[in-house]
């Protein structure tokens, strides 16, 4: 089978869109991810050094995509690592050391001596090629916006690369970029090639892949971190349905289940070890392009009618934290004060509703069968109390995405990724929060928002950063089109003998130190 570049790109884009917005694997629309291994369901991965993980997620080998959370970290080494506890202390990985210029306009990175799976050495030229791809809006995918601060990349020597910035750029933004930047062989770094062949230097190599059925990884003996990884083999099995995945875990067909729903947590806690990853956030979006939410006061009214406590308790089963704008608690822009001053208050919502003079009904689009439906049901019940009728219209995923992108949905609940330690990343890649045309404002993105994002991306001193982040929050709250609900940690249930499975701040699974 050969894929044309455009085709793999389509697939890539498609999966990117999908996973960007969906909190959990919906039945509808998830591709056929059936477990179809040749061994019987009972066998599991019993031998030491081998584990079998079940997942409902789709897989790509292209690290420029976001939907690759569960396995991509196994194939690739990134320039730096952050610790898995959600903090942002940079640790050397693909880069041995890095040095910022005093004018904040460049960084010089020294690469560690390492080999790709193919045997070729890691070179500065690979980084240059990788940066060029990231800068190409058609091939950069999720790395495109985060790379936009880079003016040029030059190879100083075989293992040294220098990045020149367009303007003075804050260190956290560069570090976030380095953390997200994978080392890929220059020759293999095209969407078409990566579609079916990873080209990295990570702890595991690809052994076998049947699309949507199973993926087998084998230990990379040449991994830079001698002695690691600990596991010899990892097998992923694909499930279309999350409940079927959990049932498979409980009946011993797989050793671990990845990205399972919160409701399973309590029941599984005794028999399995549960791992909470850093996860994403769920947000309530209102479309400012069409009635009724072209009315700012109405948006502000609904923003006060989101009962995060109850959603945390009843939809998230107590897992996760409330958020107000699109920033995780670990983000420097996270401001818990808004949860108090602008939190759930039906009286305030009713008053704003009255003041807005807007319509008293709206339709929320959502993919059927996801937890977002329950979240909306809670919002719906509260809104009913203040005389606002929210109709929920669950759709099958393809129709939902189309309506969403065409700005036809009045409102919806969708997931957003962690913006790490650079609040300006809030505007990366996604459809509802970008600074250019976006699906909730079209061409009329509030200028104050564009300014605030730009300011956050160029604030160097702590004082400047503080001001910029506060301004960003202010405009998000004022315009009230993207209302944070809760964080959605990723949840893994693992056989008790499995230890050391962690996720990084992007929520990518790291198996380097996993034992089974």
């Amino acid at each position, binding site marked *: 089978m050969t894929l044309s570049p455009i085709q793999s790109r389509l697939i890539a884009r498609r999966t990117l869109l999908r996973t960007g917005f969906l909190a959990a694997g919906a039945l509808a629309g998830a591709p*056929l991810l059936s477990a179809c291994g*040749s061994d019987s369901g*009972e066998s599991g991965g019993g031998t030491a050094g081998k584990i079998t993980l079940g997942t409902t997620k789709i897989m790509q080998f292209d690290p420029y995509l976001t939907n690759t959370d569960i396995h991509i970290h196994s194939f690739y080494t990134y320039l730096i690592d952050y610790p898995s506890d959600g903090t942002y202390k940079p640790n050397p990985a693909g880069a041995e050391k890095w040095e910022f210029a005093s004018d904040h306009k460049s960084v010089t990175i020294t690469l560690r001596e390492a080999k790709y799976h193919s045997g070729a050495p890691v070179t500065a030229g690979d980084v240059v090629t990788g940066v060029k791809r990231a800068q190409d809006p058609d091939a950069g995918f999720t790395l495109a916006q985060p790379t936009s601060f880079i003016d040029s990349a030059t190879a100083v020597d075989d293992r040294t690369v220098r990045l020149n910035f367009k303007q003075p750029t804050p260190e956290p933004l560069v570090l976030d970029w380095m953390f997200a930047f994978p080392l890929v062989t220059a020759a293999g770094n095209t969407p078409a090639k990566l579609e079916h062949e990873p080209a990295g230097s990570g702890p595991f190599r690809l052994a076998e892949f049947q699309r949507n059925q199973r993926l087998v990884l084998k230990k990379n003996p040449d991994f830079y971190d001698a002695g690691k990884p600990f596991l010899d083999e990892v097998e992923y099995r694909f499930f279309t349905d999350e409940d*079927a995945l959990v049932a498979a875990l409980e009946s011993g*067909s797989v050793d671990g289940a990845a990205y399972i729903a919160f409701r399973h947590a309590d029941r599984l806690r005794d028999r399995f070890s549960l791992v909470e990853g850093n996860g994403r956030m769920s947000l309530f979006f209102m479309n400012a392009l069409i009635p009724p939410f072209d009315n700012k006061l109405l948006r502000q009214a609904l923003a006060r009618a989101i009962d995060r406590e109850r959603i945390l308790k009843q939809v998230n089963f107590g897992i996760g934290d409330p958020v107000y704008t699109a920033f995780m608690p670990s983000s420097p822009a996270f401001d818990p004060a808004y949860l108090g001053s602008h939190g759930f208050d039906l009286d305030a919502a009713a008053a704003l509703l009255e003041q807005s003079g807007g319509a008293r009904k709206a339709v929320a689009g959502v993919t059927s069968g996801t937890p977002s439906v329950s979240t909306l049901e809670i919002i719906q019940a509260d809104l009913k109390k203040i005389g606002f009728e929210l109709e929920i219209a669950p759709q099958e995923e393809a129709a939902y995405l189309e309506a969403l992108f065409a700005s036809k949905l009045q409102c919806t609940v969708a997931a957003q990724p962690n913006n790490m330690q650079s609040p300006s990343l809030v505007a990366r890649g996604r459809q509802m929060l970008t600074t250019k045309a976006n699906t909730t404002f079209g061409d009329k993105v509030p200028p104050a928002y564009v300014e605030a994002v730009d300011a956050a991306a160029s604030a160097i001193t702590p004082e400047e950063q503080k001001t910029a982040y506060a301004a960003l929050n202010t405009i998000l709250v004022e315009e009230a089109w993207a209302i944070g609900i809760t964080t959605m940690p990723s949840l893994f249930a693992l056989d008790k003998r499995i230890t050391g499975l962690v996720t990084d701040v992007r929520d990518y699974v790291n198996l380097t130190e996993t034992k089974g």
Partner: protein
Amino acid sequence: MYGYLIRRLLQFAVVLLLGSIAVWGFTFALPGDPATVLLGPDASEAELAATRDRLGLSGSIVEQYVSWIGHAVAGDLGSSYYSGRPVVSELLDRIPATVQLAGFAMALTLLIAVPVGIAVALWPHSVVGRALQGYLTAGLAVPAFWLGLLLIIVLAVQLRWLPASSDFVPLWRDPGGALTATILPASAIAVHTSSVTARFLATSLGEVMGKDYIRTARAKGVPEREVIRRHALRNASLPTVTIVGLQLGGFLGGTVVIEAVFNYPGLGRLLYTAIGERDYSLVQGGVLFVVAAFLLLNLLVDVFYAVLDPRIRLT
């Protein structure tokens, strides 16, 4: 007989052609242009056009259909938009799994339905007969997917006797494994279908038992066992064969919910997913296959019927 066969084959071809047109029309009526769905909203018009071109979506609907049907006749159903693999390979991957589940479900159905049907017909008022009638009623009333859920909870999760997710284990490679993997979904289906079949058989058998030739056979001193086996059952099984044929046809692609409940990699699942992904060529090829298989099965049943009962050929 040949005339009948030719007539039926012609009908088969006509329905298939109608089917291909209908499926085609339906996929085009689905909301969501595959190119837009694949590329996302930020794609330029040029990119969209290039994609449509590549997917074979440019040109008028009639042109597209004609080109597609031309290839289809030659056995080429195009490639899946999503996986890039030929639709025929995608289908061939699923067909063994579907046939195996259908086979198990049908075997179970008959294993239950035949004795139960006979018992209910022969001893309707005995304790056993009444109990079995209770089973028939319950089996008919309980939705198969709900039963599937209950089976998973009890047998797979609580007792851990059987796997909850049913991988496809080919029978020819590992008969034991195939049995354990397929038994739960097959049972969930078979409880329902066996109730229908058994009731059908019981009714036909009840009717036949009242017929003159049965009385004659008894009067001639043929042992009761022989009467039932040779005379009654043989005649009563004819209408039942029709039902079994319909059921078997329904198993191909019609067990979507059961497959979802058990995570079974069958055809219904594939089509359901393909519809969700707007994978037109896969939907078209897959539905056409299901329709063809169903029609063929019915044709076989009808021919079988016609061989046994010459009067059929005339109608």
